[in-house]
């Protein structure tokens, strides 16, 4: 059977993608950001996941206001990096895992989460920046990816609680798949940032670190934090952090298993307008 070996969490700032693509990673401004991901690159070479289930959000790229799915699972064979207005990022196309994705869709919908199924979708920096940070600059991504898009653009976004429970349903689906696959689940976006209005530039280091602490040791409690606290404390765009709870809900300890090992934790301010957070939890 397939199993979830680990969860990875990371911010996805577009300027990080631009810094990578324009060869600026060695600059003083960017060096500390990329150093925070040295561990992940090495660790992934040892882990060799067969599939990554990647929870991310689209930024008015694949989904305009014509359709706003709350939860959308990608079941396509492949996905192209999107042109977000600056031209597509020069990164490899994303290869999907249609069979596992279809299996997850069927299982999770029967568990009362009404997913939208997507067979054609370009993927923006929300998906490709985490891949670049964790896998580095490669000619092909090392494994298939299942993109899972969450609406965090139009309020109300799904609650932290809903996301956490969805993670549990995704775990159940993956663990009932009939091939022995090593699956990782990633939660992306955040941390504190606000990109709009006179309060733009907001960063809340203390709240971000509380979030990281609780994500590790009290995800159940963290899942009960209401939207308004994210908005007020972490900025209007900091609400992306609810996506991390999907990945956390899929870990063993919150499903009757053992406590995960914290393999890596990193926090840095700033990358452009945003606080960068990154965490790796390994199941035991």
């Amino acid at each position: 059977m397939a199993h979830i070996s680990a969860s990875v969490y990371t911010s996805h700032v577009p300027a990080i993608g631009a810094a990578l693509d324009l060869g600026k990673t060695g600059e003083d401004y960017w060096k500390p950001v990329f150093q925070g991901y040295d561990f992940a690159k090495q660790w992934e070479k040892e882990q060799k996941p067969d599939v990554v289930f990647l929870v991310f959000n689209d930024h008015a790229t694949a989904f305009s206001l014509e359709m706003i799915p709350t939860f959308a699972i990608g079941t396509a064979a492949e996905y192209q990096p999107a042109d977000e207005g600056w031209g597509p990022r020069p990164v490899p196309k994303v290869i999907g895992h249609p069979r596992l994705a279809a299996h997850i869709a069927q299982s999770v919908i029967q568990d009362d989460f009404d997913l939208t199924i997507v067979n054609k979708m370009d993927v923006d920096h929300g998906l490709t920046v985490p891949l670049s940070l964790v896998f580095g600059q490669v000619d092909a991504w090392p494994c298939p990816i299942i993109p899972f898009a969450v609406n965090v653009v139009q309020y109300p976004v799904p609650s932290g609680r809903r996301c956490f429970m969805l993670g549990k349903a995704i775990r159940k689906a993956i663990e009932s798949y009939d091939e022995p696959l090593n699956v990782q689940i990633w939660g992306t976006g955040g941390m504190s940032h606000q990109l709009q209005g006179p309060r733009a530039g907001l960063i809340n280091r203390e709240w971000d670190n509380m979030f990281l602490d609780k994500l590790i040791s009290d995800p159940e409690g963290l899942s009960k934090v209401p939207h308004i606290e994210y908005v007020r404390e972490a900025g209007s765009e900091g609400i992306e952090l609810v996506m991390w709870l999907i990945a956390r809900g899929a870990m063993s300890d919150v499903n009757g298993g053992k406590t995960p090992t914290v393999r890596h934790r990193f926090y840095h301010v700033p990358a452009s307008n945003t606080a960068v957070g990154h965490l790796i939890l390994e199941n035991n």
Partner: protein
Amino acid sequence: MSLDKPYTDVPGTTIFDADMSRMGYHLNQFCMSLMKAENRARFKANERAYLDEWPMTEEQKQAVLDRDLNRCIALGGNIYFLAKIGATDGKSFQQMAGSMTGMSEEQYRDMMVKGGRSIEGNRYTGEKK
């Protein structure tokens, strides 16, 4: 019964909810059209004429022409859509965000390098700084 909107007292912040989305639908869809290179070229060649192809309000059109992002947001624009105008103008996300704060580009960048805008005094409208 009216809906509970607990986020209206967050200073300097407009939450893009269903009401704002309804108001800004054509403004945001206009922004979305700038994802295509040919549309960017047509918009740049004659902004007014391009905007007139959209059923936007005059206020929305003027806010776009003025590149007044705060005004665009007050009229239903969402930053991820408005970012397409910035991309068309060759602006970074940091330049766009900074333009809404009343700070110069340099001041805003310096603030971010020093750890960003503090949360203290920025939680509630009218709160003492």
